[in-house]
């Protein structure tokens, strides 16, 4: 049973399609990165998954069923538009929102103290939300998302607006979630976070899926047939290389269509060149993103 299954969902606002025939699934224990430019339809997709807005057509199943009051308790949601009762104390905020997820007061308080302790927030638990910094508030919000031990966690731009210390803290907790075998959806427009944390990605643009699959597989599909090389001595003319680009500390060799990196390496070694670094250039996700989105814009 997949944690999430989205089938051909469509959602339009006025005349514009925010999400257009989108399908994907997330397996149990898998971390899916939902990426796309601003306004691509990421948040609308997530809101349809959470049954906050209804799709015009298509259907969504969460943990094998249509989302209901009961199954909402198995999901933790960290929305992009988020906030807390400003006048309420941190600990009371956590307990109240945990109670909406079906936790009783006693176990909510116990778990809240444990999580606050883990994150070093225990000294602030009696402070009102308005007295906390934005980053601290975001950490509290994250604790609220996971306190009820959900099977599926959906995080919409969780690291935005955080300083490096709190980003690291949340990333650690994110990795914990992955290690606990929870299904996680991470929606973001920051590619480096996805490369660092996700197994698979779904890239959407203008409400449609433009890339979907295993991250390593996608990256190798988009590799640019070039090699990064650091060597000693003059390279000279190398057969099979159409272009040489000099970067800081290394040179990028663009291969012609008939030469593999393996063949190139053999040729270089046979010439007796001392090689310090030989790396098949895999474009960062950022570049793939720009390439795909740029292509779609054309």
């Amino acid at each position: 049973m997949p944690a999430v299954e989205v089938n051909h969902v469509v959602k339009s606002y006025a005349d514009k399609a925010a999400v257009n025939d989108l399908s994907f699934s997330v397996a149990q224990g898998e971390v899916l990165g939902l990426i796309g430019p601003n306004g691509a339809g990421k948040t609308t997709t997530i809101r349809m998954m959470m049954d906050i807005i209804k799709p015009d057509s298509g259907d969504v199943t969460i943990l094998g069923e249509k989302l209901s009051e009961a199954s909402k308790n198995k999901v933790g949601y960290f929305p992009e538009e988020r906030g807390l009762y400003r006048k309420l104390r941190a600990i009371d905020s956590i307990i109240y929102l945990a109670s909406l997820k079906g936790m009783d007061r006693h176990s909510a308080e116990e778990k809240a103290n444990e999580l606050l302790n883990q994150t070093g927030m225990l000294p602030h638990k009696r402070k009102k939300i308005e007295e906390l910094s934005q980053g601290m508030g975001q950490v509290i919000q994250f604790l609220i998302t996971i306190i009820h031990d959900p099977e599926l966690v959906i995080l919409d731009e969780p690291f935005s607006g955080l300083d490096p210390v709190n980003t690291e803290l949340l990333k650690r907790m994110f990795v914990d979630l992955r290690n606990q075998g929870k299904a996680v959806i991470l929606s973001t427009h920051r590619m480096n976070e996805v490369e660092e944390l996700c197994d698979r990605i779904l890239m959407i643009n203008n409400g449609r899926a433009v890339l979907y699959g295993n991250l390593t597989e996608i990256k190798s599909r988009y590799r640019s047939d070039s090699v990064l090389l650091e060597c000693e001595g003059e390279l000279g003319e190398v057969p099979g290389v159409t272009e040489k680009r000099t970067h800081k500390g290394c040179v990028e060799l663009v291969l012609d269509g008939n030469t593999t990196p393996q063949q190139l390496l053999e040729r270089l070694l046979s010439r007796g060149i001392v090689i310090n670094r030989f790396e098949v250039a895999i474009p960062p996700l950022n570049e793939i993103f720009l390439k795909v989105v740029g292509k779609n814009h054309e």
Partner: protein
Amino acid sequence: MVVRKGFIIITLALPLLALLAIGISQLISGIAEPPVVEEVTIGYVDKSGGFQQYTSQGNITLVRFDTPDEATRALVGGDIKEYFVIPPDYISTGVISRYTLEKQLEAPADITAAIKSFLLSNLLGEKISPETMDRVEAPLNLVTTRLTETGDIAPEQGGFGNFIIPGVFSLLLVLSIIFSSGYLLQGLSEEKENRLIEILLSSVSARQLLTGKVLGIGAAGLVQVGVWVVSAPLLLRLASSSIGGFISTIQLPANFLVLAVVYFILGYLLYAVLSASIGAISSNSREGQQLIGIFTLPLLIPLWFMSLLMAFPNNPIWVVLTILPITSPVEVIIRLGVSDIPAWQLVASIAVLVLSIIGTLLLTTRVFRAYLLMYGKRPGIGEIIRSLRSG
């Protein structure tokens, strides 16, 4: 969960204010000396003739002058407080001209009574007996008794004693509905402004959120009215020395308690659901308060026209206000204290109210979900109508 200081303050403030008012009024009546009967002299000019006797009317003494000029001099000189002229054609016109130095809304009642008695006595004094004279001056002391259809004395006699509880309750009803729906609106706008809605909706459905808010704040409103109602008899007992024997005439109109509870609940529900939909579509609490004002004004209409209702209880306009759902809760309560309300009107009024609540609820659940998540911008009317259609 979230205790509002404002709620507690308002709940307690009303009885405390009443207590203060009673205290002040008792203090004033305690300090005030018994009114000293002041001897007053007023003048008159008799151009008609025959008005010479009976010049002593209680504490008012009438002094005759031959001409208006003399009287004016005496008035300016301070010998008399005012004077009046009986013109030659008085018998045919009844006109009396009164002259005074004071700025007044109208002639003081004691002066009017004295002049009236003086004129009557001079006109009739020698023709009828003093007893008949007394009757001519006060011909009517009306004592009304209401009978039932079987001819027995009705348990509910009407009158102001019957009106006092509905009158006070209608005021409490208005205050309570306005405060409660205000809390609901404020709470919802705060959650919207603080971006909590999406977090709440990830745990509960929009319908649950709406019902929870309406019922929770309704219960709080009921507690508030409960505190006021319980404190009312205590306050009345305290006040009884100020308003004296009036308390004993206070009666509850028939079915009042049942109808009061029914209309409180229905009235609150209608306004709560309206507030929720306004909270959903407005972008901040200030805008919400302005919008809800459009709906709370009609709630006050029955209070504005209360005196007209007392004067003309059978005007068809009251039937309209009784059936119109946004005025009916308060109108019915007030009318119960003034006159009988035919059963069909009550049935029609409750039916219309219930139907409006259901209708508003259906419409609200449609807009609620869509607009709760729309931050910072209020949808136009056209847009709302479109979303009502598409659901």
